[in-house]
Each structure stands twice: as C-alpha cells, then as structure tokens.
C-alpha cells in the first residue's frame, strides 16, 4: 500500500519551477496504475519522488506504513535495493554484463548465494521469455528484449512496487505489446504493484487505474474495467484505441 500525501516538488533556480503542487493518492498493493498527462504535467517528477530517486520539497510517502522520506541517503539506497524495482525509458542496462548478469545484479548486491541468485534470475528471465538469451550481451539484444531484461532486473528482488518510466517509449508496436502484456501478467499472476508513467493513452488499457496529472496536480482518476484489460491482453497493443485528446496537448 502506497500512501502519498500532499507531495510537492519545487525546483529552485532563477525561476522556481513548481513541478508538483500537492499530490495525494493511495495505491493498494497489487494494483497496476498508469500515470498519465501531457508533457510537463509532473508524471516523471512524481515517479522519481516515489522511487526515492529525488527528494520532494514537502509532503509524505508511506510504503506499507513506512515513512520512506525519513530514510537517510544510505538507508534509501538500501530500501530501493530491497523493496523497489525501476524500469527506465531507455533500457538502462549495464553493457559489460550479459542478460542474466544484469538481471541478477540486485540479488548479488543483497548478498544472496550465487547459485540461488542465478536460479531466481533464470526463472524470471524465463517468465519474461528470454530463457534462450541468458548469456547474450546487451548489444546483442533487441530493444524489446533489453526492456524485458530490465523488467526482470526490477522484479528479481521481489520488489513491493515496480516503477516503470515510459517503458515502451523506444519500442516498436510489437515490442510495446509484449512489454505491456508482460506487466499486466505480472500484476495478475504475481500481484505485483506497478506504477507506470506513459504519455500514450492506448497503454492505459493494460492498467487497473489511471491517474491523470496536469500542471503538477492530480486532475482525475480513471478505472479500467477487467474486460478492457482482458481485451488488451488478448489483442495486444493497438494503436487505434481512442484517446482523450485534451490530455495529449502539451502545456
């Protein structure tokens, strides 16, 4: 359970930028939430605060009752390692490591025995459909495959919450479908809490709930029906889904 209370973020400078102007919401465990909004609405800023990659100006974030903003830098690093997974927009893998090495890296950092972390990462790589690419270097994988490795890495520590920052931004339609279906399945089968930033309205059909942001504020919420999700899962990623044109406009 994530509880976000009156979260504010102001970037100081010559002209202060109020990226988040008091955002509050709760996310129950096992929910797949899409964060949407036009560019500059504060989606990524919000994700960074929730994932402890940045420090908000004020407000509070509780994860399963733990006030994660009170953690020291060192403790925050450890908290990210133990309880959070993060999928970046641009694959963000370590090129010197092969696929499974990238995937098991968090487990190695946790001090888990080698045999065990290879087994766990291997299982996850199988789940993301890459059991035949374990020892391939990152440069030998397609964009979609790289993103699936990133997802495996984000989940390998049995994270309480998976943050995904526009995970399909650089993927072709086919790979977008693969990644979104994978996230949906992870939510369905593993009860994984997922918070995904996207600017493509079509992708919201894979989520349970959509939080629409505008000008640093939560403007509205939308719940996606099970039928729509099933249809999205069944049909894969489609580009002909109607979108809300108002929210696609840049500020």
């Amino acid at each position: 359970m994530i509880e976000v209370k009156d979260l504010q973020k102001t970037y100081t400078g010559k002209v202060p930028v109020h990226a988040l102007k008091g955002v509050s919401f709760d996310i129950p465990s096992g929910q797949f939430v899409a964060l949407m909004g036009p560019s500059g609405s504060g989606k990524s800023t919000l994700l960074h605060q929730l994932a402890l990659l940045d420090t908000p100006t004020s407000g509070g974030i509780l994860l399963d009752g733990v006030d994660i903003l009170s953690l020291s830098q060192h403790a925050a690093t450890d908290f990210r390692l133990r309880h959070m997974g993060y999928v970046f927009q641009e694959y963000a893998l370590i090129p010197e490591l092969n696929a499974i090495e990238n995937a098991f890296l968090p487990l190695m950092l946790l001090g888990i025995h080698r045999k065990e972390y290879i087994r766990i990462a291997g299982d996850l790589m199988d789940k993301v459909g890459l059991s035949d690419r374990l020892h391939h270097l990152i440069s030998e994988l397609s964009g979609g495959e790289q993103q699936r490795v990133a997802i495996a890495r984000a989940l390998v520590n049995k994270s309480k919450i998976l943050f995904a920052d526009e995970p399909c931004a650089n993927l072709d339609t086919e790979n977008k479908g693969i990644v979104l279906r994978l996230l949906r399945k992870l939510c369905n089968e593993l009860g994984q809490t997922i918070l995904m930033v996207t600017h493509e309205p079509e992708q919201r059909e894979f989520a349970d709930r959509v939080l629409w942001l505008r000008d640093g504020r939560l403007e509205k919420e939308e719940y996606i029906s099970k039928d729509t999700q099933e249809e999205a899962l069944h049909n894969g990623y489609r580009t002909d889904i109607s979108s809300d044109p108002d929210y696609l406009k840049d500020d």
Partner: protein
Amino acid sequence: MRNMWNDFQSSLFLFYKYVTRGNKVTLTLTILMATLAFIQINIVHGILSGAVNLIYSQTKSNYVGNIVIQPGKDQWGNKEQYITQVERLKRKINAIPGIIGCSARYSTGAIIEYDPDKTGKDIRSISWPVKSINPQDEMRISELHNCMLAGQYLDESDRDQVIMGREVSGGYGASLEVQSLKGVNIGDEVTVFYHNGVVRKYTVKGIYATVFPLADMTIFVTQKEMESVLGLRDRASEIIIRTDEAYPEAYYIEDLRKAGVELQDIRPWQDFIGLVLGIVQSFDIIKKIILFIGLIVAGVTIFIVIFIATISRRKQIGIMKAIGMKESIIVTSYILLALFYATIGISLGMAIIEFILKPYFIAHPLVFPMGKVSLLIVRSEFLTSIASMIAVSIVAGLIPSWQVSRENIIKAIWG
C-alpha cells in the same frame, strides 16, 4: 563485516566485467603507459644508482679502502704526523675476522718535474702528493696492480722507479690536463723535490688508470724508498684497510678499537668522498624528480582513463545507484580497475627490467667518466616506486569515480 565482504565481491564482479568486456584498446594502452612510467622511473634510478655504486666501489677499491687509520693526537691535542709501530699495528689489524688486508702508506708533498727533451727548455712541473706503498700489501687492498695501462707495477725492491696515475702523466687519455706533466711515458725520467729537501730522480715504471679520477692523481714509490727519503722506519701516514663487507664499517671500527687500535684516528671510507658526495646528492635529486614525473605520468594517465570511463558511464552509474547499488561499491570497482592497470603495468615493467634491460646493460654497460655503469636496482627504491605507483593509482581511481558517483541520480541519468 559480511556486508562489507559482499560489497567488495560486488565491486570485484563489476571490475572483472569492466576488464573482460571493456574496451581492449583502452586497457592495453593504459597498461602500456603504466609499464613505461614504471620502467622510466626504475631505469633512471638504476643507472644513477649504478653510477653511485661504481663511485663507491672505486673509492673502496682504488682510493681509501673501507677504513682509513690516520695518526691520532699527541698529549697536547695536536695531530701526530705519523702512525707509529706500524708493523705491530698491522699484525693486530690482520688478526681481526673479516679484515681482508691492510696497507701502510707514507704520504708527503713534493714537486715533480719532467724535462722531456732534457734541455731545460721545456720543464713541466707540478705540485702533487707522493705516496709510498708496500706492493705486496697493496695487492690485498686495492686493484692498482690490475690497472696498469702501460709498464709494470712496483716491486718491493724498486728504489729508483715510480708508478703514476694517468692524470699525473697527462697522457693515455687523461682528462684533467691542467694539473699534469703533459705527456710522461714509460721509461721517462722525472725529478721529485720532496718537501724535506731531498731530491730524487726516478724512472717511470708504469702508468695506471683506475678510471676513478681521484685515484689516478697519485704518484707511488715503494715503502723502502720513501723511508729512505724521510729517514723513518715503521711509521705511516695512513693505513688503508679492506674488509669483507659482511658488516658495515662501523662494526669493524669497533673491532679495531677492541683490538687495541685506540690512539689513532679511524674513519670509514665515506668520510673521504666529500668531492663525490655532491655528485651523489645531485643524483638523488634527479632520482626524486624522475620518480615524481613518472608518478605524475602514470597517475594522470590512469586518472584520465578512469575519468573518461566514469564520465561516459555517468548514466550507467546513475542507474546502478537507482537500483540500489551503494556509491562505495561503484567507487571500489573503479579503484580496483585503476589498481589493475598499475599492477599489470608494474608486473610487465618488472619483467622487462629483469629479463630484457638488466641483461642488456650487463652486455652493453654505459661508459661514464668513472667507469662502466650497468643497471643497479636498489631494493628499497624499487619497492618505493611500486608502492608509489599503487598509491597514485588508488588516488587516480578514487577521485573521478567518487566525483561521478556522488552526482544526483536524476542528473546522472538524464544529464
């Protein structure tokens, strides 16, 4: 403790992957630079140490031995002119374990004249000390008998013959022309005006060259001849002692004192190389400069490589931190990488020095004014260069990786 070990293992894992899967050209060139820097430091040190060692060795072999006994002071505190009861003293000295031999010498000031065409029109004259030796004793403490450039070494019975260093003769490749007889040859006659008024004519029996200028500026007559000139017996101006060098000179000096050599002034060879000490000190300064430059070259090279590696991996480092990797793990992995560059560079440098450069310099020594110099790797200097290279590489790895790893995660990822 377990966490620290696990963190170190993670750093080791990353470092291993950087090396095995990183850019091989960068790896090779960086190691090459570290190797060259290490060789440069040690080759210059080796040559200068070799030169210093040669000077020391020449000083001991051809100039003052290991220990010099000089006259002590009389009851009024004035320095005596001669050591007395020399034969008794020599027996005491030779009985001490570790003493190879000793030789008593007289030394007196004199003017030496050389009239090459015996017409009195071109008399060449110099003021130079004349020393006496017992040829047999001298053979045990110096290499003089092996350094004859022309003619022969003195015999004990020689009375009207001298041997002289090539710097006195002024020929045979002498380098100090100003204070010489400008071309004395074997068989030529020289006249010696001793300070006590005695004048003797001698035939030049031999010209020697130890290649050590200080030793090549002396004229020797036999002990018997000098005692006849000075009208003395069983005395000496100095006694030169050679030891087996198993211990420092101070050890043998202590033994000499215990053996009853109490009244005389006993000094180690180091006290007689004032002229040379300036050279040695200059060499030490050069060594320090070379060490400093070599370390800067190696350090800056490694720094640049690590700096570029970390800057080009800024985003990657940000991502590693985002997934929960501690800064210390990242920094340690780059320090290990820098240490790897330095260690391989040092190892290759050591192998090149040991198996290529040392044999080369033994086969083709450098010709210095004081003799032939080959590489002398002094253990303490060698270890200092290794330790310094390692220390510099740690700093060169630490600073750039620490700077980049401390950067805000978002900034590192998004630039």
